[in-house]
């Protein structure tokens, strides 16, 4: 990945993704926090594209940006205006320490470890290979995932049904 465009794109997307995630923590209005979360999801989709993961990038935009964020906003708008602040509990201090310790530990391990880096270039296109793998080697997890989605859909409908 020596190409200048990829390097510039990576740094811009990395700053957008992490900055938007920090804004999710910082803004006081929860609706604005969801909008920054959407921006962070879009940044991650862009990072997938710089990793030549075209299918996953499109799935990310369709499902996270399109569906999950709308679901979160929908749930937010069904609750009263008063409970839409983005405040912390009394656990803010310990949570900050734990997140920092976790980040430093895992970050250090990830950077120190000598990964077995392959010399192959980017994937040319991934959708066909993913489709073949899903229906060949990973067909059982694929079927289980469809049952899981059905169960989650039925469960969500039963939970919020008025009776």
């Amino acid at each position, binding site marked *: *990945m020596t190409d200048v465009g990829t390097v510039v794109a*990576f740094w811009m997307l*990395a700053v957008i993704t992490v900055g938007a*995630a*920090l804004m*999710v*923590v910082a803004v006081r209005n*929860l609706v604005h926090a*969801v909008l920054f*979360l959407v921006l962070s999801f879009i940044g*991650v989709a862009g*990072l997938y594209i*710089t*990793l030549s*993961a075209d*299918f*996953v990038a499109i799935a990310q935009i369709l*499902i*996270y940006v399109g569906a*999950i964020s709308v*679901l*979160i906003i*929908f*749930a*937010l708008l*069904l*609750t009263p205006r008063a*409970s839409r602040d*983005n*405040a912390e*509990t009394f*656990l803010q201090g*310990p*949570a*900050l320490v*734990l*997140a920092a310790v*976790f*980040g430093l530990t*895992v*970050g250090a391990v*990830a*950077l120190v470890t000598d*990964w*077995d*880096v*392959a010399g*192959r270039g980017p*994937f040319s296109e*991934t959708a066909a*290979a993913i489709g073949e*793998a*899903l229906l060949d080697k*990973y067909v059982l*997890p694929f079927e289980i995932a469809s049952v*899981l*989605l059905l169960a*989650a859909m039925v469960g*969500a409908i039963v939970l*919020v049904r008025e009776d």
Partner: protein
Amino acid sequence: MEVQLGHYLTVGVLLFSIGLYLALAKRNVVGILMGIELMFNAVSLTLIAFSRFVESPQPIAGHVFVVFVITVAAAEAAVALALAMVVYRNRGTIDIDQINLLRW
């Protein structure tokens, strides 16, 4: 200046830490869910980066795994937000400081 595996892993770690903080510290149930979604994204980004850079007999397996992560995340979001709605209907709040039914 080249973009290496370490750059993507650093972004993944930062995203995961921010998500962890959100999930642990926020008072609103929806805020906690947003933190969990951020952690899902961080893990997916790491998997895709490993799939792209690390030597493997089957490089595409990381992508397949991320497709499953996205599936499970969608199921989780639907059920968790339904649960938040039920809690709000029964308790009148989704502030987790007020949801203390199991407290001694």
